[in-house]
């Protein structure tokens, strides 16, 4: 039963990391830009949910579900601002310029959140009731299930968007060769803005879900972007299934391995595994060899 309990917790944690990686991969796939502010955008989404929660009418039984679309829409607006400030002016510069500008945007978000909300850890409202389910001795937090379900829906939605829609094809074309895409009549700037809006909306969803189960502080983004980066590197640069696999692998070490060995040893083994993957399969588990890693 304990093993099953750890498995459930590990899947929920992996889904949470996958949600963070999702927006990162989305921007990466559509613009070839590495958005180092993604972790801080997740933090901003969590704190936005905390700030909006008191304004949800008390008679509504599931405030988290009401908040989710509101947070995603507002965060999409923040994504447009981020693109306008940190990406568009630098998109023809060397890639390192965008790395630095997104890192700067992340620090601004972090310090802004610290001033506006204070340094205390906060908890956002749960998506459902926030209780636990007892399934024959197996204690499952409703929020964990919500994270898994929302992550699955968003991942499936992203796959569908990129693989099955005209918008997705335009986004991919923009990422592969912006000049050729423009020559073919694709509104490249609009595509880029759309991508940042979507990626940041996903960050908002991740922030809301994570901030209830794992709390949120203004400095939480640094660890999240590290996990997202590792997940994407393990899974394959730009691969959505790879990012999910990478996120689940991180959770396997953090929950599964650490339940046998100590947490520091589990983290050490995770990074050792990352090194082995980088040496043996530099393109990642699901990646294409042609992609260049930042």
């Amino acid at each position, binding site marked *: 039963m*304990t093993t099953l*309990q*750890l498995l459930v*917790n*590990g899947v929920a*944690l992996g889904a*949470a990391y996958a949600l963070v990686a999702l927006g990162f991969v989305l921007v990466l796939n559509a613009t070839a830009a590495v958005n180092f502010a993604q972790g801080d955008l997740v933090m901003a989404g969590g704190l936005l949910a905390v700030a909006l929660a008191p304004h949800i009418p008390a008679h509504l039984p599931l405030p988290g579900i009401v908040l989710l679309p509101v947070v995603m829409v507002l965060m999409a607006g923040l994504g447009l601002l981020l693109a306008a400030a940190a990406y568009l002016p630098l998109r023809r510069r060397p890639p390192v310029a965008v790395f630095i500008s997104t890192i700067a945007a992340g620090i601004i978000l*972090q*310090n802004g959140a*610290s*001033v*506006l*909300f*204070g*340094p*205390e*850890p*906060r*908890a956002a409202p749960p998506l459902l009731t926030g209780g*636990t389910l007892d399934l024959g001795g197996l*204690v499952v*937090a409703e929020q964990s299930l919500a994270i898994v379900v929302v992550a699955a829906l968003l991942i499936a939605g992203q796959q569908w968007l990129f693989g099955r829609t005209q918008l997705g094809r335009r986004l991919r074309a923009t990422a592969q060769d912006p000049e050729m895409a423009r020559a073919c009549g694709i509104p490249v700037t609009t595509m880029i803005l759309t991508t940042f809006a979507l990626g940041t909306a996903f960050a908002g969803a991740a922030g809301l879900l994570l901030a209830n189960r*794992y*709390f949120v*502080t*203004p*400095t939480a983004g640094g*660890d999240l972007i590290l996990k997202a980066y590792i997940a994407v590197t393990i899974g394959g640069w730009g691969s959505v299934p790879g990012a999910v696999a990478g996120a689940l692998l991180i*959770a396997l070490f*953090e*929950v*599964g391995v*650490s*339940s046998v060995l*100590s*947490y*520091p040893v589990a*983290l050490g083994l995770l990074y050792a595994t990352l090194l082995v993957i980088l040496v043996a399969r530099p393109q990642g588990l699901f990646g294409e060899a042609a992609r260049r890693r930042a």
Partner: protein
Amino acid sequence: MRRFLSILSATVFSASLLSGAAQAGDASVPVLVPLTGFLSLEGTSQRNGAVLALKDAPAGVAVRSEVIDTGTSPEAAVTALERAAGGKVTAVAASMLGTQMLAMLPLAQEYGIPLVTVSGTASITEQGNPWVFRFFPGDAVTKEAHARYVAEELGKKRPAVIYQTTAYGQSGKAHLEQAFKRLGVEPVFEEGVDPAAKDLLPVLTKALAAKPDVLVLHLHSGPTALFIRQAAANGVEVPIVAGSAMHQPSTAALLEPAELKGVCAETAASPVSGGSPEVEAFTAAYRKAFNAEPDAFALGQYDGIRMVLEAVKGGAGSAEEVRKALSAGTHRGLAMTYRSDGKGNMAHSAVIVCYDGASRVPAIAKRYDNVTGVVR
């Protein structure tokens, strides 16, 4: 937004202090604390405590001050101290971050500026530097109280110790080990946890497998709340005695009162628990000024700055005279009575607080006064 307004009001307050004309006997007390970065929660409490003490300066003492954010790097703290040292300084409310204190200490000695802090890092008072004064009990005091409560009051003999892998956690774990050894208690489980760990069920599972009769935590705020929440969700009935992070109102705010039932914690003080009219007045003034709940760091820094101001009121006109007053004097503060042990450790008492499951405000269950025997 209210948080922003409170910070703005503190800044305006500082500016108004600065605008006061400097007079002979005035106190100039810059506040150099970490307001951003990973220690911003505790640093903000420290700032608030210092600002409140300066605002409540004794009659006849005119105060000048400014607040400077030291962030988390030693370089920023040194720069802030150099900037503050440009004028006449009575004392500095100095960062609680140990690495920043260690960087500031040589400079404080060179300039002759007393550093008044609530840093818990043991080594800051082990440098032989006569200019540092710590108004917060170190691990030697708090972990002694922690272990004694577990062994003597609860009668537990099989503790499982879960600590953070940071310097804070390692120091606490080392002192807990020594204290338990003196009490004849052998921990059945010990493990460090990274502060970034999101799921603490693995360590909880391993700890319970060792069949402990008490869970002893020494974790930061978020991990403490996460651990207690997961323990409650899994129906763990083994009592939990946590470290000082649990007493912080912002930690309790993350949990439902029912999840806190039976949880105890060590701390230097718990202003929200009351205990005397003076402490209650401090808590009310703090809430009014900052729209937040005070913790032990705020109260410790408040007491420290009050001792500096009392020294100025008593005739200490220079930084050297203030240093002498802090070194040799005794101060009856709100949290405890302070006296230097010769190294600058001023605080020698700790309390254990416990939650009843009905509210997020703990009650003081046990006081451990003068643990080191320094206070006469």
